[in-house]
């Protein structure tokens, strides 16, 4: 997709989101699929403000809970900077609910990209998550309700393939380093 096509697609997604009435679960699922694409693939990180609340609660794997929109922005930028060409390969998204009680949706996707930026694991490794290696799966569930007259994600549950990400973002040991580690282990034994 060239830049012109990308901007056309972006406009279509933006238009759909701006005009969505939130009347059916199908509309909600489509909206959040396109919204996810705009934030991550099209790098419009500021759109997080549209559907997150100030005190959003995000539950992560390992019992970690984050509260607040600032953390959402910081974590999004950090992950994106580690994989600057990151794309989301959607497997599925679907919702249930109604305009009165709100909606709940679940989505499943693979991350595709190359670790070309620094991360908490250190310098870029250049290792890739390719479209067909199904390496790093990410699932999230979101609770969507009307807050102060606007549709908002008020709670999110998110699990990413942490070990796969760690493997991608950690440099392989050189042969010399591996030999040194083996030697150390032998000495300890």
């Amino acid at each position, binding site marked *: 997709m060239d830049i012109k096509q*990308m901007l056309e697609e972006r406009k279509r997604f933006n238009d759909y989101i701006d005009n969505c009435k939130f009347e059916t679960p199908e509309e909600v699922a489509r909206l959040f699929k396109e919204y996810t694409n705009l934030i991550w693939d099209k790098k*419009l990180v500021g759109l997080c403000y549209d559907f997150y609340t100030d005190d959003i609660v995000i539950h992560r794997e390992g019992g970690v809970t984050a509260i607040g929109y600032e953390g959402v922005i910081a974590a999004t930028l950090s992950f994106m900077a580690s994989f600057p060409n990151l794309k989301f390969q959607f497997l599925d998204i679907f919702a249930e609910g109604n305009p009165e009680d709100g909606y709940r949706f679940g989505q499943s996707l693979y991350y595709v990209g190359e670790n070309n930026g620094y*991360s908490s694991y250190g310098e870029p490794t250049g290792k890739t998550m390719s479209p067909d290696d199904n390496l790093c799966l990410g699932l999230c569930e979101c609770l969507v309700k009307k807050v*102060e007259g606007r549709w908002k994600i008020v709670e999110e549950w998110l699990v990413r393939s942490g070990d796969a990400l760690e493997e991608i973002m950690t440099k392989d040991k050189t042969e010399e380093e591996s030999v040194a580690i083996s030697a150390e282990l032998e000495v300890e034994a």
Partner: protein
Amino acid sequence: MMICNKYSDEIKVLRRSIEANTFSDIEAVRSFIRDYTKLVYDFKMIGLIYDYYDKNIIYRKENRLTITGVENLVFDILELLATFPDMTVDLESIIVSGDVDSGYKVWRRMRYHGTNTNHTKFGAPTNKELGDGCLGLSMMFLNKVDGSWKVTEEHNPISYSYIRDVCTAE
């Protein structure tokens, strides 16, 4: 009012403003630069770089570094914003020269503010702030490319050693 709603509304207003901008005169360009800078840096709308930078942009930075191509520029700005996720930019001065027929030259004097709360090439987050010391000066060349206004070249050195110090643990 919820802060997220306030920011969401501000982003919508600024996006409408830049989309409606015709670059008809110097004041229109000045207004565009003000709105666009706030969208990209303060509001993290990094993807808008694709709209207004030419795909073959030449972006000259500090220390002999030159970035070529819009994709690489997006990655570069993304890295800066990820380093300081709460970054805001004060635009202290904008100088514009040129006209709608021959294109515009734009000068920006900026002051970057933010806190290092993410990992960088210098190590773990330091939680140190940029304070008032991070000056950025930029010269941009705005021209019509295939009917759309695009930055075709920019010179934008940033206080690299200052950023390195802020991102390096004591």
